[in-house]
């Protein structure tokens, strides 16, 4: 599961999908996840990076991450 290559994210969390013209405002954690994906990390890497960085139990992290990835998928931001 990879972020589409041409997705543009500004420093303030404004994401633009040049393929569809859609734009989104990301909160800080969403921005972090999207940037991890953009750097080429796979989902397992992202999970580990977040787990190392935040005080969170694995189940909550997995659930929230999965929800967010689904949201990205729904908005055509991921390569299938």
């Amino acid at each position: 599961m990879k972020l589409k290559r041409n997705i543009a994210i500004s420093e303030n969390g404004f994401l633009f999908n040049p393929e569809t013209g859609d734009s989104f405002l990301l909160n800080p954690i969403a921005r972090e996840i999207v940037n991890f994906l953009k750097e080429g990390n796979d989902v397992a890497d992202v999970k580990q990076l977040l787990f190392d960085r935040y005080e969170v139990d694995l189940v909550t992290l997995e659930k929230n991450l999965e929800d967010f990835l689904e949201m990205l998928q729904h908005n055509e931001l991921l390569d299938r």
Partner: protein
Amino acid sequence: MKKTKYHIAVTGLNNTDNPGPGIPVIRGLRESKDFDVRIIGLAYENLEPGIYMPDMVDKAYQIPYPSSGMNTLLKRIEYIHSKERLDVIIPNFDAELYTFIQARERLQKIGIQTFLPTMDQFEERQKANLSQYGEKYGVKVPFSKTITHRRDIEQLKDSFEYPLLVKGKFYDAYLAYSAEQVNSFFNRISAKWGMPVIIQEFIRGTEVNVIALGDGLGNTVGAVPMRKQYITDKGKAWGGITIQNDKMMELTRDLIRKTKWQGGMELELIKTNKNEYYLIEINPRIPAWVYLAVASGQNLPEALVKLALGLNPPPFSNYEVGKMFIRYSYDLIGDISQFGNLSVSGEM
């Protein structure tokens, strides 16, 4: 080096909330790096805003409506030509294109060039022929049917699901949820645009558009896809953004290659959530949002003039993605003397 100055006549100066392409076309022409222009505005109405906008038209002339016939229109053009020595005319209204396409050779004889689709290209993409068009060129189109009488409305439920679209042959489209609504829209549209009225399957999805210019030999000189960001109650884009979309570009190039399209065009497409593209309409002219293409690196009005003059412009290879346009309204102040001049002498 001194640039050549071309005298170019442009229609579609109705820069209203449902704007014609005249003013953005003129803006593109005035930004040409290769030639200078004298712009002659051709207006149907005295209050077309483009006539009064500063630095847009150098001179404006009233012209008769296409319904008054080709000879009447040509007589007026010949008079304007005698005063202005026109090089090119860019007609920008769907309703006038038929007459200008028919008049192509007569205009050419007196030294005025156009760059419009052929009559066959113009006719086969008519909304009423969209189903056959889709089949012929391998493009997905919504199912559509033409009707000419109110009694046909009751039978629509056999071949359509509601809601469906009721469209005029040139302009206007309404979404109808029942036969009663179809009836009301049918009356409204047929009174305004005549017959037939087109009934079209409603495809759910996002509306996206492509502006393109074909050289008449099958080559795409330029193309820019756009997503509407804000749509007025008339369904017109009030804001839009250029996008990067290979599927839309391929569909456009393919269509121009197969049809050998000549002139400007706008493809109106619906992208479904299954990522399929349906062609819902082809406008056989430059659309009103052409200045977005100019601003993103493709001066299509300039290229169209070059094509009309046989100058073979090189094709555009790219454009800037993420360029936006936002329309606005602004009160111009004029003087009654301007209006008076135009009303009395038909020129200003």
